[in-house]
C-alpha cells in the first residue's frame, strides 16, 4: 500500500513539475511588483506585423521607464480571439491589457466587469488630448457614459469600383446614388452578362460580423450616421433601413448580385463593386500588382438614396482598440495607462503603426498633421480612408451584438438578397426579432 501511495505522490509531483514548465503568457494578477519594477502583460493581435509593432513600442518604453517591464505576447487566435480572452478571464489568467478589441465585444466585457472604465483612471484625459482624438473618442463612449476602449486604429470602410470596367460602360466616375448604381447595373448586365455589380457570397451568410461590411456601411450612409441601437433601445432609422434593403432587392432583380462563392471576384473582374479595407493593398501589392488606384479601381464612400441631403456619406468604422483588464492589480493598471499614454503621445509611433501594419491611427488630425503627409504621399490609396475617419461609425455597443447582427442577416438582409422577402416585410420582421433580443 505504501508503495502504491508513493507512486501516486510521484505522479502528482511530476504533474506539478510539468505544470511549472508552462510558458504562461498571461496571468496579469499573478505578476507581482518586484523591487520597484511593475511587470505588465500585453496581448497583441494575432498577426506578425502588429506583434512586431508592440514589441518595438514596449522595448522603447522600457528603456525610458525601467520601473515598468512589459511582456508582449500574441493573443491566441484559436478558436477565436474573443474566446481565448474569455478563457483567460475564466482561468484568472487575463493579461494586464490587450489590443484588438472592438466596441461590441468591449460592451460584453464591460457588462461582465472584466475591463476597467478608462475614464475613471487618473490620466485618461491626458491620453485623449495627447493623441488628439477628442472627436474620435465621442463615437466610442458607451451607453453607460464610460470609456472602456482606447481606439487604436479606425479603418473607415470604403467601397471600391472597377473604374476600368466602368469606363467601358461609358462612366468616368463611380455612381453616388442608388438610381445611378442601378443604371450601371442595367448597362453592365447588357454588355457583360457574366459580370455582376457585387459578387460576394457573404451577402447571404447570416454570420453576425459580416453585416459590418455590407449592411452597416450602407445603413450609416443612408441614415446620415444615425445609430442603430443605443444601449438597449432600438433607435434605427426605419426609412433609411428599408431603402438599403430595397437597393439590394433591386440589384437582385437585375441579376446584379452574385452570391456564389467566387475566388477574388473583384480582382478578377467578376464583380465591379466591393467593400474594401486598407489592409487589402498589402495583399494586392504581391498578388494583384495590376490593381492600381485610378487605373483599375477607384475608392468611394457608400452610395446613398437619391433624396438624401448630405455633403458627405457616413460609413462603418472597422476599428479596434486597447483595454485594461479588471483582474490586473491597481499598480499594473496604472502602469498600463502610462504605457498607453506614452505610445499615444508621440505621433511618430502612429506613423510607425501605419508603416508596419497599414492600419490608420484613430486620431482627428490624421489627414492634416504634417508628420503623416509624406506617408500619405507615398500611399495615396490610403488618403480617402484618412479623410473618412470623422464620418466613420464604430460597431454597436450592445453585449448581444452577435444575436442582433445575426437577426439582421437572417430576417432581412440575407432573404432580401435572395429575393425571398419584400424589403419592408424583412425590415419589420428583423425589427421585431431584435426588439425581442433587447428585452
Amino acid at each position, binding site marked *: 500500500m505504501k*508503495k*502504491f501511495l508513493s*507512486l501516486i505522490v510521484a*505522479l502528482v509531483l511530476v504533474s506539478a513539475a510539468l505544470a511549472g514548465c508552462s510558458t504562461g503568457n498571461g496571468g496579469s494578477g499573478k505578476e507581482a511588483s518586484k523591487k520597484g519594477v511593475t511587470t505588465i502583460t500585453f496581448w497583441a493581435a494575432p498577426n506578425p506585423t502588429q506583434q512586431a509593432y508592440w514589441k518595438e513600442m514596449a522595448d522603447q518604453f522600457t528603456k525610458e521607464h525601467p520601473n515598468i517591464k512589459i511582456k508582449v505576447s500574441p493573443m491566441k487566435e484559436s*478558436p*477565436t480571439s*474573443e*474566446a481565448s480572452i*474569455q*478563457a483567460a*478571464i*475564466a482561468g484568472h489568467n487575463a493579461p494586464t491589457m490587450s489590443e484588438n478589441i472592438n466596441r461590441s465585444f468591449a460592451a*460584453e*466585457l464591460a*457588462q*461582465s*466587469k*472584466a475591463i476597467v472604465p478608462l475614464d475613471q483612471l487618473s490620466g485618461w484625459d491626458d491620453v485623449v488630448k495627447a493623441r488628439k482624438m477628442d472627436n474620435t473618442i465621442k463615437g466610442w463612449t458607451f451607453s453607460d457614459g464610460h470609456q472602456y476602449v482606447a481606439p487604436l486604429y479606425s479603418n473607415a470602410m470604403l467601397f471600391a469600383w472597377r473604374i476600368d470596367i466602368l469606363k467601358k460602360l461609358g462612366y468616368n466616375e463611380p455612381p453616388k446614388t442608388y438610381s445611378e448604381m442601378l443604371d450601371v447595373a442595367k448597362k453592365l448586365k447588357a454588355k457583360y452578362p*457574366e459580370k455582376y455589380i457585387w*459578387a460576394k*457570397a457573404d451577402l*447571404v*451568410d*447570416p*454570420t*453576425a460580423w459580416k453585416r459590418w461590411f455590407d449592411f452597416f456601411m450602407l445603413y450609416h450612409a443612408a441614415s446620415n450616421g444615425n445609430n442603430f441601437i443605443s444601449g438597449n433601445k432600438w433607435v434605427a432609422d426605419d426609412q433609411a433601413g428599408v431603402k438599403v434593403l430595397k437597393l439590394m432587392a433591386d440589384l437582385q432583380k437585375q441579376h446584379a448580385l*452574385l*452570391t*456564389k*462563392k*467566387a*475566388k477574388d*471576384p473583384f480582382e*478578377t473582374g*467578376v464583380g465591379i463593386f466591393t467593400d474594401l479595407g486598407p489592409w487589402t493593398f498589402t495583399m494586392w501589392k504581391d498578388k494583384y500588382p495590376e490593381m492600381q488606384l485610378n487605373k483599375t479601381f477607384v475608392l468611394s464612400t457608400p452610395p446613398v438614396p437619391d433624396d438624401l441631403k448630405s455633403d458627405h456619406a457616413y460609413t462603418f468604422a472597422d476599428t479596434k482598440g486597447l483595454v485594461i483588464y479588471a483582474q490586473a492589480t491597481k499598480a499594473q493598471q496604472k502602469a498600463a495607462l502610462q504605457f498607453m499614454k506614452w505610445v499615444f503621445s508621440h505621433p511618430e509611433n502612429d506613423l510607425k503603426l501605419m508603416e508596419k501594419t497599414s492600419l490608420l491611427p484613430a486620431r482627428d488630425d490624421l489627414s492634416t498633421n504634417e508628420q503623416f503627409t509624406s506617408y500619405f504621399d507615398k500611399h495615396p490609396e490610403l488618403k480617402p480612408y484618412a479623410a473618412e475617419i470623422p464620418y466613420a461609425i464604430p460597431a454597436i455597443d450592445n453585449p448581444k451584438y*452577435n*444575436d442582433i447582427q445575426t437577426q439582421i442577416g437572417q430576417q432581412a438582409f440575407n432573404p432580401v438578397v435572395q429575393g425571398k422577402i419584400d424589403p419592408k416585410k424583412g425590415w419589420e420582421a428583423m425589427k421585431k426579432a431584435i426588439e425581442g433580443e433587447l428585452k
Partner: protein
Amino acid sequence: MRHKGQGRLGWLFASPYLLYAVIFFAIPLVWSIFLSFTNWNLIAPTFNFEGFSNYIKALKSAGVHAAFFVTFKFLIVFVPMVVVSSMIVAFVVHALPKFKGLFLVGFFLPYLASGVVSSLIVKGILSYNSPVNIFLRHRFGLDIDWLGTPFSALVVVSVMIAWKFTGYYALILTSGLESINQDVYEAAKIDGANAWQRFWKITLPLLYPALYTVLILSVGVTFGIFTEVYQLTGGGPSNATNTWQMEIFKQAFTNLQAGYASAIAIIASVVTFISIYIIRRLMEWWGKRNGWD
C-alpha cells in the same frame, strides 16, 4: 496476498489511462453539466442557476433543430457512400496479385491530410470562377451553386469526408477479406454458386466483424463533422449543413454563451449515444441472423 498485489499492479498499469480519462473526460463532462444549468458567460464574476432554461431554449432553437436533422441527412448520404467506396477499394486491393500494402497506404493518405487544406482546395475548385465551373457554364450551360444550395452543399461535404475516410475503412475491410477462408469459396463454386450469390451469402456475412466496425466508426464520424463544414459552408446555406459541432462552436466561441452551448453539447451527446446504440443493436441483430453471436 498475492492476489491483492496483482490487483494493485493492474491499477498501476491502468492509472495513466484513468488519469487521462478523469482529466479529459470526467472533469469536462461534470463541468459541462454544471455550466448547462447556469447563465454564465465565463467572464462575469457572478452567475445564476437557470434550471432547465438553457435546455428549453436549445430545444426550441432553429439551429439545434437543423443540427439534429442535418446529422441524420449526413448519416443517410455519407454512411452508405463511405461504406460502398471503402468496400470497392477493399475488393480491388484484395484482388491485386502484388503490392497490396503499397496501394492501401496510397488510399490511406487522404486520412492524414489536413481537413483545412483539403477544404480550401475544394473551395477553390468549386468557386464560381474556377476552370471547372467556367467549363461547365460555357460547354454545357450548367451554372451550379455547389455550396450555395442545400442539397449540393450536403453532398459536397459528404463526398469530401468520404474521400478522407475511404482508405482508412478500406484497410479494415481488406483485413476482413483476407481472413475469409478461400476454401469456403471453392466449396460454394463446386455447389454452383455464382459470383453474386457468393458475395451475398459468403463474403458479406463473413465480413460482418469488419463491416460492424466500419459502420459504427462512420456513424460516429457523422456526429462529429466540423472542419469541412466550418471551412466550406459555415453551416449554411440556411442551416442546411449546420451540424452539432458547428452549432456548439457558434454558441460557445462566437456568441460566448458557455452555459447554452454546454446544454446543446449535452443534448448532442444524448442523441449521439441513442443513435449509435440503435444502430449497434440493428447490426447485432443482422449479425445474429448470420451466425455471429
